[in-house]
């Protein structure tokens, strides 16, 4: 094994540097580290590998995983197998983008700043909102931050969330809410959507916000109009909608239903599944909340010669200025994933975003129709996007094991989350699934369930 290829210092360099510093022994640099806490010996870290050995090891680990590339996947529940144009990876592989950091020095960061400005615009277009930030960690933390923003701006303590919001998102919401001593109230669902009657009963003068998902966790299109009416009957209550951005290529955007905050995850647009991350939360608001939005914002301005340029702006909201009074503690975000999503959105363009969304809706309904024909119960109404629930009458996890043996990654076992949903499977069908794959999957399911 040779020297370390990331370390340029030669012994001669080190000697010359020590001479310049004026010490003979490098250890003199460490006299401020008390003997008692110095680490002697070798860290219990796995040994160094050469590049070919490293690739062999990691390729071996990668090969132990069954991928959605090898097996047609019907698994969604917040992360989806979608078409990603090849240009996306090409763009985000450019060192000028991925080896830079937050664009603090605007003059040499115009590329990143402009790309974010374009991302903010694309998110506004999709959601029907006035402003969007440069990204959040993911959809779950974006949702939690929306609750914190609502509580902070209304000075109220009660957060109402629908049971049809992604269960992991709700778990994250609970963790965030506990820190700020907020009370989270969960509204049950009726027929796969938020129970608006129960919601009406729960909203009161102490309510900071109402959070729903659109399409919701079961794939259903929540009736935002009815929910919005209930929410805004009470003065000041914020209406928060979490949305799969791809669905907004065909669905009326939440902004058109007077949502105050729209959040979600850009993974469906240009971001690989990557075992759940890094993905990219988005966060969009109406005008009156711009000064409260968490995270970085890019704004347009001019330079001394009057030429157009972009800067990080409204920084008085942020931790490096406001410290403990900041809107949020977020610092690093998901800029590279936001770039990936931007490139995908630009590649799709006006026509593609709609076609992509339309193919999802068509294929999912085709799959549901085929399953119904085979005698499966498809729950709830037909107003779903690319996911729906079927009742298997037996453990969805054990059905999934059998599906794997037939070469399919099955849907999400809802019983894993909610005991009363045992036997039910959430099936996602994206544009990536061909008719043949869907037909074979339906057939495999039929055989497995009949053979019980």
């Amino acid at each position, binding site marked *: 094994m040779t020297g370390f290829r990331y370390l340029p210092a030669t012994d001669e360099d080190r000697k010359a540097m020590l001479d310049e510093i004026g010490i003979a022994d490098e250890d003199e640099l460490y006299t401020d580290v008390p003997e008692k806490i110095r680490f002697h010996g070798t860290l219990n870290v*796995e040994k160094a590998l050469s590049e070919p050995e490293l690739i062999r090891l990691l390729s071996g680990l990668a090969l132990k995983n069954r991928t959605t590339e090898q097996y047609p996947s019907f698994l969604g529940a*917040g992360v989806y197998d979608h078409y990603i144009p090849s240009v996306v990876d090409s763009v985000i592989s450019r060192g000028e983008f991925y080896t830079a*950091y937050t664009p603090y020095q605007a003059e040499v960061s115009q590329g990143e700043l402009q790309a974010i400005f374009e991302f903010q615009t694309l998110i506004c277009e999709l959601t029907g909102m006035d402003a969007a930030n440069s990204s959040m960690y993911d959809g779950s933390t974006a949702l939690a931050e929306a609750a914190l923003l609502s509580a902070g701006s209304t000075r109220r303590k009660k957060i109402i969330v629908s049971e049809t919001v992604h269960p992991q998102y709700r778990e994250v919401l609970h963790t965030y809410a506990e820190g700020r001593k907020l009370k989270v109230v969960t509204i049950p669902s009726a027929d796969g959507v938020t129970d608006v009657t129960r919601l009406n009963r729960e909203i009161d003068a102490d309510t900071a916000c109402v959070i729903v998902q659109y399409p919701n966790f079961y794939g259903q299109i929540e009736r935002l109009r009815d929910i919005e009416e209930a929410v805004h009957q009470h003065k000041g209550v914020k209406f928060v909608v979490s949305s799969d951005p791809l669905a907004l290529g065909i669905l009326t955007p939440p902004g058109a239903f007077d949502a105050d905050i729209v959040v979600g995850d850009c993974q469906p647009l240009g971001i690989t599944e990557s075992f759940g991350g890094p993905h990219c939360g988005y966060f969009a608001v109406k005008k009156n909340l711009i000064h409260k939005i968490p995270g970085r914002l890019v704004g347009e301005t001019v330079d001394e010669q009057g030429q157009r340029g972009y800067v990080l702006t409204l920084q008085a909201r942020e931790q490096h200025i406001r410290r403990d009074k900041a809107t949020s503690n977020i610092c690093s975000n998901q800029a590279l994933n936001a770039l990936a999503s931007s490139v995908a959105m630009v*590649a799709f363009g006006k026509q593609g975003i709609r076609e992509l969304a339309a193919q999802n809706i068509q294929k999912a309904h085709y799959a549901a129709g085929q399953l119904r024909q085979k005698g499966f119960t498809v729950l709830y109404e037909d107003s779903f996007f690319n996911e729906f629930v079927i009742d298997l009458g037996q453990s969805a996890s054990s059905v999934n094991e059998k599906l794997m043996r037939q070469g399919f990654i099955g849907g999400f076992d809802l019983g894993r989350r909610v005991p009363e949903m045992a036997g039910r499977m959430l099936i996602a069908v994206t544009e990536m699934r061909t008719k043949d794959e869907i037909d074979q999957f339906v057939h495999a399911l039929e055989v497995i369930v009949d053979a019980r």
Partner: protein
Amino acid sequence: MPAEKNQPLIFEQSRKGRTAYSLPALDVPETPVGEWIPADYLRQDEPDFPEVSELQLVRHYTALSRRNFGVDNGFYPLGSCTMKYNPKVNEKVARLSGFNAIHPLQDEQTVQGALELLYRLQTNLEAITGMDAMTLQPAAGAHGEWTGLRIIKAFHGARKDIRRTKVIIPDTAHGTNPASASVAGFDTVTVKSDANGLVDLEDLKRVADDQTAALMLTNPNTLGLFETHIQEIAEIVHAAGGKVYYDGANMNAIMGLTRPGDMGYDVVHLNLHKTFTGPHGGGGPGSGPVGVKKELAPFLPKPLIIRHPDGSYGLDDDRPQSIGRVKAFFGNFGINVRAYAYIRTMGPEGLRQVSRDAVLNANYLKKKLSEDFEMPFSQFCKHEFVLSGSRQKALGVRTLDMAKRLLDFGYYPPTIYFPLIVDEAMMIEPTETESKETLDAFAEHLITISHEAEDDPKTVQSAPHTTVVARLDETRAARHPVLRFKK
């Protein structure tokens, strides 16, 4: 060929009818969506996305990349951010389909390789930090800070020790420390630094009391100085009943040399995008694992990655005292793959050499600049140092001006005006991946700028002169926010 002065927005390049994607024709029978979705919920107006061809798209983003500066372009001594080289093999392995085409909710048996990698990474990070247990769920440093503080809160809560509402933070701390404390539900108390730039022990004794939940402290601290009294600091906080939190922003200085776990720290977060070559992505994604000592382990977020007795890997969700989930799924897995690849490239000896070279580079550069710039702290630094532009300020040249002038010489400037306690601060972190020649050239250029401050201040004050835009009007951007393109 220099980058163009102006690059039109992608929206301004749009022509109706162009596309840059390709999908197969729909192969299932098409039904009017109105049969399923009520008309109110079907979008009437299309999102106004740009319409460009694939080559136009590529040219646009290539043009933008030419207007951006990363570590691959040149020296990027941005203090506290550890802008080291981002190995290419890391990018290659993170893109293996076995890692990027797996779904987080797949059956555990079908993702054994991913779980094994995470488990191995966890174990290595525990060894590097001297901690007993680790979560890889937090997505970035600040997210890790908040997670660590929530764990400390849960620990005190489980003991019914509910008076502990305060977190002590040094006046040199990064802004995320007080912000994270606040989001975690604590009030913050500031502890002063002494004349040597270290935590003032007397002040710490004054502020540490039975309301103290924790002290947050990087070591080396944000001045790049080793908190030599760290054991006493930990003792004071522990005696008051609080926990000691390690902000891992500066871990690059100490790998294999000393460990937070041995210094008396109870909770640690790491920035895998800094020390472990993440990369930085233009602002993220990061990854902010949190390690804890045994007594705090029950409170870690769930699920944890575990190794079963039969050698297989799995998820432990049955953790009744856990603070819960801090992020959907398992954190920024793709970044964790890169960090693991880096650790395996360096190994234990390599990681130690990383820190030793980082410290040597910083001290060398500091020495080279010490005649021309005010050095507020005389002791040896660790991986970074803070100089003061006070002499140049007296000549009418601010640190901001010098930073902007560095752009003309092809450098990304150091962190400026932080930490807050140093007048006209410039915080320089060279990292171990920069050669002596690079450091020599940088020192020479910065010294040239200090001479310019004397002889030709206008050139510095009006810098940069060579970038695609000149200094931008930030006040205008904030007063009249334009946050999106409109036709």
